[in-house]
């Protein structure tokens, strides 16, 4: 199934991704083939009731809501550009 350009552009919007013109054309072709494969699922005629059927994963009891020691802020921010325990982001306003 061919995927329309506007569908791919919408998906790029949702996914926060950019493609140049050549990249967009390539990914349109690839997504068309992938969606053809996914479409085989449409011949399966069971319906899913997520209020009844979602029994495959049972979440364990959540832990008690007791305050625990946390990470030092400095360590948490060790992978970010940071100054004085704040994120530094690029200037995006005039």
């Amino acid at each position, binding site marked *: 199934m061919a995927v329309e350009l506007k569908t791919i552009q919408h998906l790029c919007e949702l996914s*926060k991704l950019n493609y140049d013109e050549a990249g967009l054309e390539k990914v349109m072709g690839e997504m068309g083939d992938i969606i053809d494969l996914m479409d085989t699922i449409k011949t399966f005629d069971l319906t899913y009731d997520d209020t009844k059927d979602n029994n495959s994963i049972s979440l364990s009891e959540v*832990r008690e809501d007791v305050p625990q020691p946390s990470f030092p802020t400095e360590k948490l921010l060790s992978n970010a550009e940071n100054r004085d325990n704040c994120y530094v*982001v690029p200037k995006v306003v005039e």
Partner: protein
Amino acid sequence: MDITRAKIRDLRKALDSKQISAAELCGEYFKNIEAGDGKVQSFITVTKEKALEMAENAQKRIDSGDVSPLTGIPLAIKDNICTDGIKTTCASKMLENFIPPYNATVIEKLNAEGYVLLGKTSMDEFAMGGSTQTSAFAKTKNPYDLERVPGGSSGGSAAAVSASFAPAALGSDTGGSIRQPASFCGVTGIKPTYGRVSRYGLVAFASSLDQIGPICSDARDCAVMLNAICAHDPHDATSSRQPVPDFTEKLGQSVSGMKIAMPKEFYSDDIDDEVKTHVMNAAKTLEAQGAKLVECSIPGLKYAIPAYYLIACAEAASNLSRFDGIKYGFRGEGRTFEELIRDSRSKGFGEEVKRRILLGNYALSSGYYDAYYKKALALKQQIIKEYNAVFDLADVILTPTAPTPAYKIGAQDNDPVKMYLADICTVTVNIASLPGISTTCGYTAEGLPVGMSVIGRRFDEQTILQCADAFEQTFAPTAPAKL
């Protein structure tokens, strides 16, 4: 004897009897890594200095008699498992310089045992792939044939064990990423039941399917590793509270009377003839030991690939939305907030990761959700029911681990559909949250390993370990030539 080809249990004896020190042992593995990993490229980061420090600490424990099964044992760790202070890249430019500020729970458990970290192994980017060729940093080769893929996504871990760069490694498995590379590299890998091992600190791909597990040279070593890493973890809400047994308990027990199911869909014309022959021969070997072979069917297998990819990619699209170039990870350029995020993600992620994010958002987007994502969840329930029906008839299920042996590098490039279809033998185990182990059952005429998978009931890792071990006791593996 080359000690780097010894099992964990033999290394334990050698360390405890002072035949070798922990530092000398890890030195032997580093010799192999330095001699051969330039060709195999199984590691992204080698932690030699850290390893020697850990080995010294382990030696103190050994000398004082405070020994656990993995004290002083060198291990390799897949590079999507967080290690405090040591780069964890997920083989992605996005996390090229990411140094976790904490350890994954499995690493804390291994630390408590006194293990020695040899390094972090390569993988498909964010664990998305079956060849380790989507790694941004180390496109791992198969030690049996350097022109072939090692499988994936835990290809670095499997190749490292196969090439005797480590006696064992940790991998992660979302749709076969432990079992398939174990099969391609001629080693043994187990994906535990979902919930058996904590996922805290495992960089998430598809949270309802991901599971950490060991890759070793046999089922007995896998049992030792599982004993060390399995437990309930309050940091992971999906971590199970099921009692954790001693996984070595059933090793060595006869399979006489064990019912082994062989679903016909796993032996179709889509499976390579040599692969089928070796797995069928393994079934006959187990039958000769007293097991009973049971014919059965899992008709839902024909929908397994779309069901798996729709669920996994939907979860991946959500999980990977956290990578925005702001808090950590690769930062691109842009004049606005939106431009900055889009540039960071477009340049930080590789092509396969981007394709899966697009597919995931397609399945979740308005107008498509019911037709794709909800349908995939319905199929998940159907596949679980079909497996339950098989387990009414049998104790374990035997299948090939992959439709083919290791293929040539480049054979599946630019063909994502072909790559996805190659996961047909493994994905249903993740969909149904079951445990599965792959072990070598033969070699092709070209000398490539063929893997078979033993699948068990939820939380019954003991029986699949017993079955794989029973076969391994009859089988003489051929290690790859030393590199």
